[in-house]
C-alpha cells in the first residue's frame, strides 16, 4: 500500500471524477452572462442579443441610441430588473440550501420544506394587511419576513429536538407542520382582511413570483446576498467540519453552539429578504446545491460559489419558462419550481434511503 506513494497524484488536485473547480466557475460565469442576455431578449417583443447590452450600456452612461423608447423601456425597466431579481433570489436560496444542509447534516433540507419560507411570508403579510413596522418604511416587509423566518427556524428546530434525539425525520415533519400552520395563518389574515388587493398580492407571495420587479427592489436583496455569501464562504471550513457531525466539529475547534446561532441568523436574513421580494419559491435550495455537489464535490469552498452561480442561472430560466409557457399569461415561478423540485425531492429521498443512511 505504501508503494502507491510514488505514483499517486499530487495532493491538492481535485478528485478525478470531478471537474476542475476553476473550469466550472468560469463556465458558470459565462453561462450566467448568456442566461441574462437571452432572458432579457426573449419575450413577446424579441430584442436582438447585442441590442440588450447596447441599451444597458446607454442607460448606464446616459447616452441615446438608434432604438425606440418602447424597446429601451422593455429592456431596461421591465426585463432587466426582473431577470436580475430572479438571479439574486435563485442565488440566495441556493446559498441558504447549502448551509442549511450542513447544519442539519442532510441533503433534504431546504427553506421551503422546513417551513422557513412560510414563516417569512407570514411576516410579509402582516406588514401588508396591518401595516406592522410602518416606521421602517420600504424595508418593513424585509424586516418582518426576516423576523418571521428566524422565529420559524427556532420553532422548527425546537420542535424537532423535543423529547429526545434530534433526527432528520422529525425535523422535516416539524417543518411541514409549521408550514401548514403558517399557511393557515396567512390565509386567515388574507380572508378576514377588508383590503381587496391583499388577496392577490398574498396569492403571489404564497406561490412565489419575480414579476413586476423594479430596480428599486434589487438593492436590499443584492446587498444581503453579497454579505451572506461572503460570510458563508469565510465559514467554509467550519461548515465542512459540521458535515462530519457536531461532536467532530467541536473537537476540530469549532464553537458549534455559537456558530450554529450565527448561521441561523444569516440563513434567516437571506431567506427573509428573498421571500420579501419574491414570495416563497420552493425547492431551489434543494435542487441547486445537490447539482453543485455532483459537479465539484462537498467542500464548501467550492460548493458555495458554484451553487450561487447555478442558482441564479436556474431561477432565471425557470422565470423565462413562467413567462413563456402559457404566454401571454404568466405562471408564478414557484409553481414551476415545485413541479420540478417535488419529484426531485422524492428521487433524493429514494436514493438516500437505498444507501441506508437516510437518517442522521
Amino acid at each position, binding site marked *: 500500500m*505504501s508503494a502507491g506513494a510514488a505514483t499517486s497524484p499530487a495532493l*491538492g*488536485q481535485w478528485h478525478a471524477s470531478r471537474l476542475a473547480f476553476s473550469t466550472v466557475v468560469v463556465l458558470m460565469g459565462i453561462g450566467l452572462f448568456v442566461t441574462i442576455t437571452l432572458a432579457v431578449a426573449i419575450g413577446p417583443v424579441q430584442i436582438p442579443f447585442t441590442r440588450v447590452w447596447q441599451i444597458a450600456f446607454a442607460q448606464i452612461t446616459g447616452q441615446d441610441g438608434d432604438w425606440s423608447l418602447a424597446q429601451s423601456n422593455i429592456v431596461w425597466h421591465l426585463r432587466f430588473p426582473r431577470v436580475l431579481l430572479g438571479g439574486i433570489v435563485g442565488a440566495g436560496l441556493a446559498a441558504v440550501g447549502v448551509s442549511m444542509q450542513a447544519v442539519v447534516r442532510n441533503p433534504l433540507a431546504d427553506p421551503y420544506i422546513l417551513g422557513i419560507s412560510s414563516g417569512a411570508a407570514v411576516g410579509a403579510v402582516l406588514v401588508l394587511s396591518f401595516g406592522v413596522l410602518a416606521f421602517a418604511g420600504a424595508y418593513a416587509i424585509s424586516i418582518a419576513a426576516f423576523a418571521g423566518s428566524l422565529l420559524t427556524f427556532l420553532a422548527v428546530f425546537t420542535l424537532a429536538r423535543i423529547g429526545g434525539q434530534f433526527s432528520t425525520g422529525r425535523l422535516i415533519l416539524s417543518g411541514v407542520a409549521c408550514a401548514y400552520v403558517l399557511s393557515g395563518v396567512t390565509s386567515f389574515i388574507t380572508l378576514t382582511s377588508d383590503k381587496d388587493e391583499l388577496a392577490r398580492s398574498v396569492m403571489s407571495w404564497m406561490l412565489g413570483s419575480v414579476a413586476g420587479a423594479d430596480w428599486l427592489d434589487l438593492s436590499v436583496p443584492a446587498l444581503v446576498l453579497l454579505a451572506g455569501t461572503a460570510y458563508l464562504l469565510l465559514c467554509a471550513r467550519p461548515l*465542512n467540519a459540521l*458535515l462530519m457531525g457536531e461532536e467532530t466539529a467541536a*473537537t476540530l*475547534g469549532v464553537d458549534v453552539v455559537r456558530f450554529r446561532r450565527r448561521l441561523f441568523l444569516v440563513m434567516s436574513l437571506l431567506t427573509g429578504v428573498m421571500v420579501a421580494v419574491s414570495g416563497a419559491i420552493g425547492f431551489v435550495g434543494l435542487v441547486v446545491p445537490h447539482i453543485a455537489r455532483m459537479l465539484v464535490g*462537498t467542500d464548501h469552498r467550492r460548493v458555495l460559489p458554484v451553487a450561487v452561480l447555478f442558482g441564479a442561472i436556474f431561477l432565471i430560466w425557470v422565470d423565462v419558462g413562467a413567462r413563456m409557457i402559457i404566454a401571454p399569461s404568466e405562471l408564478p415561478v414557484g409553481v414551476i419550481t415545485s413541479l420540478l423540485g417535488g419529484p426531485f425531492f422524492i428521487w433524493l429521498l429514494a436514493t438516500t434511503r437505498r444507501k441506508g443512511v*437516510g437518517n442522521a
Partner: protein
Amino acid sequence: MSFVSTQDISWAVDGVPIVQDVSLGIEAGEFIGLVGPNGSGKSTLLRTIYRVLKPTGGAVFIDGNEVWKTDAREVARQCAVVTQERASDFEFTVEEVVIMGRIPHKGMLDADTKADHEIVRRSLAEMHILDFAHRSFSSLSGGEKQRVLMARALAQQARFLVLDEPTNHLDIRHQLDLLERVRRLKVTTLAALHDLNLAAQYCHRIIVMRAGRIVASGAPREVLQPDLLREVYGVEAEINADRSGRLRIDFSYLGA
C-alpha cells in the same frame, strides 16, 4: 504536574451521576487504556476531557492549560480525537477529511498552504493510506475509515490523542493494525478500549472504571487480576503470562 490530568471530574444528567470525582494523571508519551463495562462512564469521561461535555464539577488540564477555560480552537491544537465514525450522506474525499485536521490552525481568511498539504501527505503516509487520498471517504471499509480519521488527528499536530473505542466494528487484523500504529506514534494517548487482551498488549497503563469511578490504575499485569475482573465485570478470568511476558486473559461466564 502530569502532562494531562483531571481533578475530581464529575458529570451528572438529571441528578444521576455518570462520572464521579475522577482524578487521573497521564505522563507525556504514555499510552493509557481506559477500560470498564458498558455504562461505566468511559465515553462521558473522555468527552469532558476533550471539551465537548462540560463537567458539572472538577477541572481538566492539558499541558498546564485548564481545558474548560481555554477556547475550543486552542484545545483542538493540543488534543486530537478519534471516535467511531457515523454514516453521512455527503461525499468527502479522504484528502478533504484529513485536511480538516488543519482547521484549528487556520484563520477565516487563511488559504490552505503548501505546508498544510505536506502535513496531510505525511499524515496519510504515516497511516499507510497515501494512495487513498482521492477516494470517497464513504466508500471505504470500517478499518480504512478509522485510519483516515487517525490521519486527520495526526494532521491536527496535537500532542495528546484521545481515542474512544477506535477498534469497534473492526476485524481483529485491523484492530491490531490500528493499535500498533498508534503505539508507534509515541504520542501521549488515552484510549477507551473494550478488549482487555488488546489493552494489556498495547497500553503502558490501564485505568479501570466502574459505575462512574476509577477502581484501579496501573501496569496491565498489576491491574488485570481475577478478583478485580470478577468485581468489575462479573466474570471469571484466568490470566496467564507467556514466555515473552505477554498477558493472556481467558474469560468464563459466572451466570446471572
